């Protein structure tokens, strides 16, 4: 049984915004609650007022515009993103990431916006959205603003969101031509928390296989998802080879600052980053349209073979 609170379930975003601006620090928003209710049950969070926005259907949508930008309403469930044909075709990295979040029961109820606002450092959407250079739309009675996903999580379980603000939309720009992206998390069991994860989006030059741009995001190895900027520098402007990816992995591993806990030591997580950057990088390059991969054993799947994962 959870500590008592006052509950409201506004039907519209405007009503929700006006309620949370009245409640200030005493209020808390719940969407699917797949993270928040665990914290409330353990009395780590005990709001006086709980504003349930799960039923606000205007924040539940997936929309790809004519120019190819993707907009996802914050209350869209993980499962809806996972099973969206359009996302599977045009933003494959997102649907692949979603299908390995927790269990289908959690994905049926939990929302992408709730996941981002919870800001668990082992969360899967953050590193992927950082690699895709996504932005978030945030609304309050005072107005609206956007923030890069990269700048949203400030620390573990702490985000750049005032008490009167609601995250309303995730905005993913259309990838440039010859861009490929890939995400892999390493976990002991399918669907469980990442010990380390890497998302990479790489853009190749129109006329050659030179890497024009790359974004590498690491998950579960810092207090928030982080860019591996030095590793990106290793790759930009060059034709990416096995050796270069190896180097990028080593550099990224040096940038990672993981904790050690019951699941894995810090040293092991750093080692995982080194390996994952290489694997993820190869797959991202193939998806970007790099014709061949010298020394590649044609394992384009790029998934981690562990304990019979699919």
């Amino acid at each position, binding site marked *: *049984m*959870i500590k008592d*609170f006052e*509950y409201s379930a506004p039907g519209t975003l405007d009503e929700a915004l006006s309620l949370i601006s009245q409640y200030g620090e005493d209020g808390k928003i719940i969407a699917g609650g*797949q993270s928040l209710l665990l914290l409330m049950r353990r009395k780590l969070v005990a709001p006086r007022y709980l504003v*349930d926005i799960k039923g606000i259907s205007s924040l539940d949508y997936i929309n790809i515009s004519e120019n190819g930008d993707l907009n996802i309403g914050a209350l869209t469930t993980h499962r809806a993103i996972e099973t969206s044909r359009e996302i599977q075709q045009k933003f494959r990295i997102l649907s692949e990431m979603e299908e390995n979040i927790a269990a289908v*029961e959690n994905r049926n*109820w939990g929302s992408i916006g709730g996941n981002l606002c919870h800001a668990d450092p082992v969360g899967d959407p953050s590193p992927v959205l950082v690699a895709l250079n996504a932005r978030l739309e945030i609304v309050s009675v005072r107005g609206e603003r956007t923030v890069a996903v990269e700048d949203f999580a400030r620390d573990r379980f702490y985000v750049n969101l005032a008490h009167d603000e609601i995250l309303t939309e995730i905005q993913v720009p259309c990838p440039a031509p010859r861009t490929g992206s890939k995400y892999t998390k390493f976990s002991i069991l399918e669907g469980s928390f990442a010990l380390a994860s890497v998302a990479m989006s790489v853009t190749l030059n129109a006329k050659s296989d030179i890497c024009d741009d790359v974004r590498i995001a690491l998950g579960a190895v810092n207090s928030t998802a982080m860019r591996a900027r030095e590793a990106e520098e290793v790759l930009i402007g060059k034709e990416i080879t096995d050796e270069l990816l190896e180097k990028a992995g080593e550099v990224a591993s040096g940038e990672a600052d993981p904790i050690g806990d019951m699941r894995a030591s810090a040293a092991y997580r750093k080692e995982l980053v080194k390996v994952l950057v290489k694997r993820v990088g190869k797959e991202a390059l193939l998806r970007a349209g790099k014709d061949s991969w010298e020394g590649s054993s044609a394992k384009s799947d790029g998934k981690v073979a562990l304990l019979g994962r699919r």
Partner: protein
Amino acid sequence: MKRELKITVNGDLYELYVDPGMLLVEVLRDRLGLTGTKRGCNSMSCGVCTVILDGKAVKSCTILALQANGKNVTTIEGMANGSKLHPIQQSFIDHWAFQCGFCTSGQIMAAKALLDENPNPTREEIKHTMNGHLCRCTGYNMIIEAILDAANRLQEEVK
């Protein structure tokens, strides 16, 4: 302050007043007496509390009862038709897919949601969909066999 909750469970409409902090599993078990849905880890790790909410499998330990207001819930008690077991239930018996039975109602509800959505799943699809369910008795293989067989039985019924 207690709030009104209107909820349809296994086809019956219930109207009751609940504390906002009450979870769906608590309402089902403690207020409606539907104890087929089990309480296990209480932290959405084990799957024994799985019910079907408006057609989707969810974990009732991590949903506020009030979030199910106005919705339709199916629990294990809603599976059999009188004394005739649902094909998934019969298949679990025939394949020895449970021993102690504690995880079974959650497993069956998850299997029901899976087969409603995908009537002919592969073994891999079953494994992936059922990965949120722990069973300490069977070693899982019999559960997978039971679901594969249930899919056949359900398709036979349709014919």
